[in-house]
C-alpha cells in the first residue's frame, strides 16, 4: 500500500538529515523553486489538498487569501498543537520525519513569500520538539535554512514554539494569541489570519500533516496527487484508530477509504469479536455514528453529508459493552475542562453538561435531565466565537439522540434520589463574611 508521510517510519535515525536525505528529503525543493509562487499555489489548489488539522479547508486556497499589496511581513505558522481526543498523528511526522515537515514549510513559504515560520508544538510533546529542533539546527548548518535556501536567493528562518497545555490553542486564532504571549482566547473572525494574523500581519496557519504532503504534491504533480483520494479530497491522510479494536494505530490511507474497511480490515475488527456499538469518526468533537452508518467514505464531504465530520480523522471505536452515558461523561468532562472561558454559552454550558451527566451516573438524575442536555447543547451551538462550542455540543446531541433509551434508563434508576428536596439557593441565608 502506498505511503507518503509515513514512508520513513521505522527507518533507523530517520529524523537525522543524512538518513532523511538518502530517503528523499529536500529533493523536491528545486522543482518548487523553479515554479513561481502563483503557479505553486495554483498547483496545490488543483491537488485538492485539504487542511488536515480538522477544518478541511483547501490548503492552496488559504494561501491565496493573503493580501497581495501589504507592506507588512508575512508569516507561516505551523499548527503542531495536536490535542483532539483520539488523534495521534502529527507527532509521528515530527518524531520520525521532521525534515519532510521542514521541506513542506520551505515550499509553502516560497509559495506565500514568507521568510519566517513558527512551529507551535504542544507542550507535552518533548520528543517531537527535540527532533524538530535538531532537524532545524542540522538544516541550518547544511545551508538548507538561513540567509539562503540551498543557494536560492530566499531567506527563511524557522522557530519552534512550545505550548504549555491548552487544547484550545489548536484553534488557529487562539494559537496566534498564544504565540503572541497571551492566554489562548480565540479571536472573532473576520479579520481572518490571512489578513491579520500573528502580530496583525498576514499569516497562514497550516497543520503539520497538511504541510508534510506539500512536497509530494510537487513531486507527483497536482492531478496524480488528487487522484489518490476521492472527489475534492486529494491524496492520502493519516487515520488514528483507537478504542476497542484489535489493532489500534495510525494508518495512512487514501482519502475516502470506507470506515467499515478501516475498522474491520486495517484495525482488524472489534476487540474480542464483540459487536460494534458506536464510532466517533473524526476526533471527539465529531458526532457519533451507529453501526448502520459506517458504510461511508472517510473524506470531508461524505461525512459532512451524513451529519458528522472527518475532522482530525481520529477514529474511536466503542463495542457493545461500553456504556454510552459513561462515555459521554468522559467526553464532556474534557470540554468542560478545556473551555477557555471566553464565551458564556460554552463556559457555562459545558460545566452544566458535565454536572448533569455526572448526577445521572450518581443515580441523581432528574426527570427532564435528558432534554435539558439537548437544550443546553443547542444553546451553545452557533453562539460562540470559535468552533470549540460546536465541538462540545455536537457529540452530546448525537450521543443523547442516538442512545436516548440508555440515558433515560439511567435517569429512571436514579429517580428515588430525585424525590429528595432540591437544595435551595442561599437567598436569605446568612453568608459568612469574606
Amino acid at each position: 500500500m502506498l505511503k507518503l508521510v509515513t514512508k520513513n517510519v521505522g527507518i533507523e535515525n530517520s529524523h537525522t538529515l543524512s538518513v532523511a536525505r538518502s530517503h528523499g528529503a529536500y529533493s523536491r525543493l528545486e522543482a518548487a523553486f523553479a515554479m513561481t509562487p502563483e503557479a505553486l499555489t495554483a498547483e496545490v489548489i488543483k491537488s485538492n489538498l485539504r487542511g488536515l488539522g480538522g477544518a478541511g479547508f483547501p490548503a492552496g486556497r488559504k494561501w491565496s487569501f493573503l493580501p497581495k499589496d501589504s507592506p507588512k511581513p508575512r508569516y507561516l505558522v505551523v499548527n503542531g498543537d495536536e490535542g483532539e481526543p483520539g488523534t495521534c498523528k502529527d507527532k509521528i511526522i515530527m518524531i520520525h520525519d521532521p525534515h519532510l515537515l521542514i521541506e513542506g514549510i520551505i515550499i509553502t513559504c516560497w509559495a506565500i513569500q514568507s521568510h519566517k515560520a513558527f512551529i507551535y508544538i504542544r507542550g507535552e510533546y518533548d520528543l517531537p520538539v527535540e527532533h524538530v529542533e535538531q532537524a532545524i539546527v542540522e538544516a541550518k548548518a547544511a545551508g538548507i535554512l538561513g540567509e539562503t535556501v540551498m543557494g536560492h536567493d530566499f531567506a527563511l528562518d524557522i522557530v519552534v514554539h512550545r505550548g504549555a497545555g491548552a487544547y484550545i490553542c489548536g484553534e488557529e486564532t487562539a494559537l496566534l494569541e498564544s504565540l503572541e504571549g497571551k492566554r489562548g482566547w480565540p479571536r472573532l473572525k473576520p479579520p481572518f489570519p490571512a489578513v491579520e494574523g500573528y502580530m496583525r500581519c498576514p499569516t497562514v496557519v497550516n497543520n503539520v500533516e497538511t504541510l508534510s504532503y506539500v512536497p509530494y504534491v510537487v513531486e507527483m504533480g497536482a492531478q496524480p496527487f488528487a487522484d489518490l483520494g476521492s472527489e475534492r479530497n486529494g491524496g492520502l491522510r493519516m487515520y488514528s484508530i483507537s478504542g476497542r479494536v484489535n489493532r489500534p494505530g495510525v494508518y495512512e490511507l487514501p482519502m475516502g477509504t470506507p470506515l467499515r474497511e478501516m475498522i474491520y480490515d486495517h484495525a482488524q475488527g472489534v476487540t474480542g469479536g464483540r459487536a460494534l456499538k458506536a464510532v466517533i469518526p473524526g476526533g471527539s468533537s465529531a458526532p457519533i455514528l451507529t453501526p448502520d452508518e459506517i458504510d461511508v467514505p472517510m473524506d470531508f464531504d461524505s461525512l459532512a453529508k451524513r451529519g458528522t465530520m472527518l475532522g482530525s480523522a481520529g477514529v474511536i471505536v466503542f463495542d457493545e459493552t461500553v456504556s454510552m452515558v459513561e462515555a459521554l461523561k468522559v467526553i464532556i468532562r474534557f470540554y468542560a475542562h478545556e473551555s477557555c472561558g471566553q464565551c458564556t454559552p460554552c463556559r457555562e454550558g459545558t460545566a452544566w453538561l458535565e454536572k448533569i451527566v455526572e448526577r445521572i451516573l450518581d443515580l441523581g438524575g432528574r426527570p427532564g435531565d435528558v432534554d435539558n442536555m439537548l437544550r443546553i447543547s443547542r444553546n451553545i451551538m452557533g453562539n460562540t466565537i470559535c468552533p470549540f462550542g460546536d465541538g462540545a455540543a455536537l457529540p452530546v446531541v448525537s450521543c443523547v439522540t442516538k442512545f436516548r433509551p440508555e440515558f433515560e434508563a439511567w435517569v429512571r434508576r436514579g429517580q428515588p434520589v430525585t424525590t429528595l428536596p432540591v437544595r435551595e439557593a442561599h437567598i436569605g441565608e446568612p453568608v459568612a463574611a469574606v
Partner: protein
Amino acid sequence: MIEHTSIRESSPTIDYGMVDHPGPVSWSDAARRDMAAIFARYPDKRSATLPILWLAVREFGWISPQVEKIAAEILGRPLNEIHIVVTFYTMYPRRPMGQHHIQICRNVSCWLAGAADLSRYLQQRLGIGPGETTADGKFSFSEVECLCYCECAPAMRLDNRYVGNLTKTSIDQLIGEK
C-alpha cells in the same frame, strides 16, 4: 485576598494566598544567556512570554509569585498579565512538584483501555490523589486530558517521556525504577 494594586505600578505586590519561594529568586547567568537567545527569535518581547516561563520552570522548578514577578520584569509586562498567562495553561506548576511527575491520561481512548482502573491503582499505590505530591516529595500525580498517544492506550507521561500500553505490572516496574 487580592489587593487591587494598579497593574502599571512598577513593583506591585499581589498576595494570591499562595505558597511562595522562601528566599529571593534571581536568574542564573546561564538562564540570562538563554533568555537573550529566546528574545532574538521573535519580532517582539511579548511573544517570548511562553518560552521565558518555560525557562523559569527549568530554573526554579515552579512558578511562584516571586517568579511571576521577575518574569514580568524581564518581559516588560504588567504582573497581572503574567499571572493570567501562567494560570491559563496547565503545564506551568504553581506549587513545588515532586521529583517525578506522573500524568495519566483520562480521556476517551485511554478510558476505553482501562485508564480509570489504572489511575485508581496508582493513587492507591502512591497514597495520593490527583494534584497531590507524596510526603517524601518523590512523586506528583495528575490525571490529564488526551495526551494524543491513543494508539498505545492506556498511556501516561512520566516526567518528559511517554509510556504507553500500560498495565499494573508495567506501572509497578516504572515506579520501582525511580
